[in-house]
């Protein structure tokens, strides 16, 4: 019973992440796109944990642990990249925002 429940939950989360992916396409600012990526990575962690519990694969918890650890890297990188762009050139403001 729980297997079906967790598989259904994982499918729902994946579909939900797909809805969030619309933001990557739409934007309009780069911060919005990063937010969508963050939502999808959180959903991927939840999906991995649920799949690991449903299919009894303990190795998936390690994959989820890696995702959780590396989630911060993308955000930190986006932030420093934008600040470096802003620092180099004030006129890059519009660029850093949209691009």
């Amino acid at each position: 019973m729980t297997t079906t429940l967790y598989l259904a939950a994982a499918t729902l989360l994946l579909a939900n992440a797909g809805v969030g992916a619309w933001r990557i396409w739409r934007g309009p600012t780069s911060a919005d796109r990063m937010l969508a990526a963050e939502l999808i990575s959180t959903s991927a962690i939840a999906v991995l944990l649920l799949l690991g519990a449903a299919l009894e694969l303990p190795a998936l918890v390690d994959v989820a642990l890696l995702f959780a650890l590396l989630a911060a890297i993308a955000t930190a990188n986006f932030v420093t990249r934008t600040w470096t762009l802003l620092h180099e050139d004030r006129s890059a403001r519009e660029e850093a925002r949209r691009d």
Partner: protein
Amino acid sequence: MALSWAFDLLLAVGLIWLAWQTLFGHHRFAAVVSFMVFGLLMALVWVRLSAPDIALAEAAIGAGVTGALLLSALGRLPRHPEPRHLLRPWQRPLQLQALAAAGMLAVWLGWVAHRLPRPGLAREVASDLAATGVAHEVTAVLLNLRGLDTLLEVAVMLTAVALVWSLGPALRSFAPATALPGLPALTHLLHPLFLLVSAYLLWRGSHAPGGAFPAGAVLGAGGVLLLLTDSVPWMHRERYQRRLRALLAAGLMMFLAVALGGLLITGTFFAIPTPLAAPLILAIEVATALSIALMMMAFYLYGEPGR
């Protein structure tokens, strides 16, 4: 059953859509973010194909480091790129021919993959497992039975570092701690965990999914976080350059030493004697993981430090 079909279908549709967005989207930043998400979904696909080892590597390298690398490279591209190159009239038939050739190649590859013997070489690996010094099949193949492939992979990474460094001087990122107090806090909080998780993966590699590549990638991701906050100034100093290069090559050197030692003792290149296999493989794994971590950081400098 229907549920797992629905899950796989969603995954496949999402992958194709993201691949399309990455290649043909008109917005560069959106393309990079699509690629990062593509890496995430790819790890899920490997999980569904029951390959947790590749899922680990994909999670560590695809989701963590490659996306971040592309994102920073984006900032180095010219602000206003030239208008997109349109195809000239004489190129149109060539394009069709190239498409047809690629399609035929894909069909041929699919046919060859379909005709591969099943279930592969799993039985042969399992029968030799006792002599390899490790208890996990994937690690046995990567570091003992087909160690040569892994050696070449490390050599390819080292070559890539040399190529990136030949492009120019290193860049330093700008992240003011006064405006972004969260960034140093993030580094301080996460750094012990990066060390812990990579040691855990390295240790797990001998008997379960894990090993040198994911461990090195995780450690490298932690190093990238340090570079982002500009907290490894020694990498840019003149007097550490020789040491840095020696450390970068350490994994490859260790590998080569073991391979040549095998040649001397048994007469075959990369034949590790069984009683020595377990400690030697551990030594290779530690050296390769450290080198891979440093290479990840080296990519991230975008140029030769200390120049």
